[in-house]
């Protein structure tokens, strides 16, 4: 178990009460990944939620001619929500690009806490939904291919 102090500094818990943060900290461990380290692998059981505190992570898919980077994430962010949604399997590989400091929340512990505390479940779900919708917006903008010629600004 880690101190709730470190957890309290992460923006993910900004809307939680100090009691909820203490409760959540029972699932938390501080982890560090060296550059190039595999944080999780596509298809494996999603056994944690990572609250990244610093460092860059590449989300990538394995392809015959090498990994395809789908997105990079930096700064304080949340890595992985597959732990919440059955069948609880990672959809991508996550690789540390540089030194990555994170708080790992154990998925089983987290699901149990959320099951026991509907208020906590609501706050965490809302936070995750905001992150998912942000990432979806980014993906949609990339799909638009805004730098393509047909998107000349009003010309």
């Amino acid at each position, binding site marked *: 178990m880690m101190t709730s102090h470190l957890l309290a500094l992460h923006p993910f818990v900004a809307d939680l009460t100090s009691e909820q943060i203490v409760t959540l900290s029972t699932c938390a461990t501080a982890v560090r990944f060296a550059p190039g380290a595999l944080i999780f692998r596509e298809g494996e059981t999603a056994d944690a939620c990572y609250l990244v505190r610093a460092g*860059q992570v590449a989300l990538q898919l394995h392809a015959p001619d090498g990994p395809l980077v789908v997105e*990079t994430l*930096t700064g304080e962010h949340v890595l992985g929500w597959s732990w919440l949604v059955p069948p609880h399997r990672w959809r991508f590989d996550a690789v540390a690009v540089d030194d990555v400091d994170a708080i790992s929340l154990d998925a089983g512990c987290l699901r149990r806490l959320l099951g026991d505390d509907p208020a906590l479940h609501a706050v965490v779900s809302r936070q995750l939904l905001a992150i998912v919708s942000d990432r979806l917006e*980014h993906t949609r*903008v*990339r799909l638009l*291919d*805004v730098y393509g*010629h047909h998107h000349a600004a009003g*010309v």
Partner: protein
Amino acid sequence: MLPVSEAVAATPLAPRLTHVDRVERETADTVTLHVSAVDTELPPFAPGQFDMLSALGVGEVPISVSGDPDDRVTRQYTIRAVGAVTRALTSLRPGGVMGVRGPYGHPWPVEAAVGADVVVVAGGLGLAPLRPAIHHLLAHRDRYGRISILYGARSPDELLFADEMQRWQSDVDVAVTVDAPSAPGKAIPPWDGRVGVVTTLIPDALFDPHRATALVCGPEVMMRFTARALADQGVTGERVYVSLERSMACGVGLCGHCQLGPFFVCVDGPVLRHGLVGPWLAVREL
């Protein structure tokens, strides 16, 4: 009576003849032309202004000046071939001739930004109109606070001024991201940098949101999302400046081709406060 060349130069709508000194290929469809005037010097320009360039016998188009505003001899234009005129211009070789009239339009507010942090956000070809402002900021580095250049492009092979960007890094913060680090069937240089939309660079950039000035140029969708992401960080639309593109004919406020609501983009812009012009960009079918 004035000699013919002087009389022509004195007419605001008459192009000056220039010749191409150098052509630099930037990407598969984009080149930078270095040009100088055949007889008289080209008038100085301010960062963000544009010239009307004519490909002789083909037509005339507005193109932002992309070079150093302190260079009084050579003018640079970074042009993407998209249609008849830009194809003709990008096909010019050293020694080729083209017409230039200008400079026109409202520049980037580099003087108003003195003393504050500056965030430059560029998308794709949008780095070209921002480059003179970057030259200015670097030439007067001590007059500004933190300077961040955030640049997003479609893929690594479409990044402009990559070598120059390396040099800028020694004086200012530079962050670059691409939408697609690789593409099936396309040979693209290996990329180990950031992947994602340019707005994802904003939360990591270091600036004082209450005093920073943001200079933004790129496709309109990108500028809209950027203004929103800057607002999320506390930079209000009054300190966010965007450079707009509209179809133009005269370039001097006479024909109305470039009208956007109450603005003529050629004279009121191309650089406008997002706080002022944002609502008009949101009006559909304008």
